[in-house]
């Protein structure tokens, strides 16, 4: 049976791991390849790097970090942030990433999702959706959560899958960095409408939140940053809670799952 994945996310700016609250107030939290290796050892099922500087002149730094990580951590790596073309996606994959996540560029140019899926396969294309609750619905935001669009998050999720996205990374802007738990309503609204795996993001405080994202939100995978970087919770304790709730998880070293 397919395991539910626990994915540490490393927000990378200028070659360092950072984390802010609601996409701002960044704090330095370490060296990406070093943290990546630690997480792989501790039982992370996958890793996500989000390059939140994403300035074109910094591409080289990101590619170097991706390659150093791929040589140290033998688990899958998704890289997002600033990829705007098929060629840029190719460079990131060749540096050692398995998947690329498209966000602002996918909204601006939906054809990019199809072009990348045709060239590299849907399984390599993740569409990241940053959503802010607006009454009973959710609005898609771009540019690191700073700019509203006219898109409804659920409708955009369905469209992204039609275009060729093989996975969706759904972040609740309301919850991100707040520790209030994942927005399971948002997750459920999307997982009810698409058949590709959905990664839940934004708001994790404790192991119970991971359980809720899967059980109530229907997520296939759950992503978090701060609680792992700051060692508030270990991947093992999160997985133990998921296993105790009857969710299938991959055993991590030194912990029964």
């Amino acid at each position, binding site marked *: *049976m*397919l*395991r*539910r*994945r626990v994915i540490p996310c490393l927000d990378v700016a200028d070659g360092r791991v950072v984390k802010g609250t609601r996409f701002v107030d960044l704090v330095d939290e370490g060296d990406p390849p070093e943290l990546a290796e630690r997480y*792989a050892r501790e039982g992370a*099922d*996958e890793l996500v790097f989000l390059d939140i500087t994403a300035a074109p002149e910094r591409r080289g730094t990101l590619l170097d970090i991706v*390659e150093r990580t*791929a*040589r140290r951590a*033998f*688990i*899958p790596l998704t890289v997002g942030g600033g990829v705007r073309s098929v060629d840029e996606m*190719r460079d990131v*994959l*060749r*540096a*050692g*990433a*398995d*998947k690329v996540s498209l966000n602002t560029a996918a909204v601006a140019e939906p054809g990019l999702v199809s072009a990348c899926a*045709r*060239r*590299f*396969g*849907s*399984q*390599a294309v993740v569409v990241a959706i940053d959503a802010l609750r607006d009454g009973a619905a959710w609005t898609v935001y771009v540019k690191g959560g700073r700019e509203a669009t006219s898109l409804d998050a659920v409708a955009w999720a369905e469209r992204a899958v039609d275009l060729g996205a*093989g*996975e969706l990374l759904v972040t609740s802007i309301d919850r991100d960095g707040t520790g209030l738990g994942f927005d399971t309503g948002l997750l459920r609204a999307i997982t009810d409408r698409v*058949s*590709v*795996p959905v990664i839940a993001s934004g708001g994790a405080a404790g192991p119970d939140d991971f359980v809720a994202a899967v059980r109530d939100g229907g997520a*296939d*995978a759950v992503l978090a940053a701060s609680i792992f970087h700051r060692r508030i919770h270990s991947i093992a304790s999160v997985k133990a809670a998921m296993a105790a709730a009857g969710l299938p998880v*991959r*055993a991590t070293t030194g912990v029964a799952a």
Partner: protein
Amino acid sequence: MTPRIAVVDYGAGNLVSIEQGLTASSADVVIARDAGAFESADAVVVPGVGAAAPAMERLQTAGLVEPIVEWITADRPFLGVCLGLQLLFETSDEDGARTFGVLEGRTQRLDRAPTLPHIGWNQVERRRSHPLFDGIADGADFYFVHSYAGTPTTEDDDVVLAETEHGGRFVSAVARGNLLGVQFHPERSGDDGLRLLANFVALVRTAGRATADMAS
């Protein structure tokens, strides 16, 4: 002997991980963009993800299809990973591509899957024992990322080494002589994945010794 392994590069995806995984297993890795790299190689690895037709086109353009098929037909050590396994069959339902055809059967969509693509860690259940899985528990988790899987014909069913369940059972590893293929990504499957790659390198070494013995 340090075996030399040619990893075929046809312009799609991540080669760093498989190269690093094989190097960590004491193999000498050469990236093959044309058949010249096969001359000094002891084994060939075809990695890759994505669709069959564009992959076949790029392999064709690089003049690699015939050398690969000849390599496999001569029973020289070969490992296909993910798409590299699917290409061993005759055709792919994904886009109708004609593939290597060294195994009878075709690549089919995982139609009964609850989610597609099938992305994540899943159990690899062996049908029989094989040195490729030495030291790896039956049912160990490996990382998958695909929507299609190669399905052998009933006559060619004996090539099946392992299966995995995702809505229905599909073939997750094959072996016939020195021809090996895995649907999962050993280079992305942590310690068990590295062990599998090391087992492959050990098999390449054994095959090399057997050839040397025959020659002497």
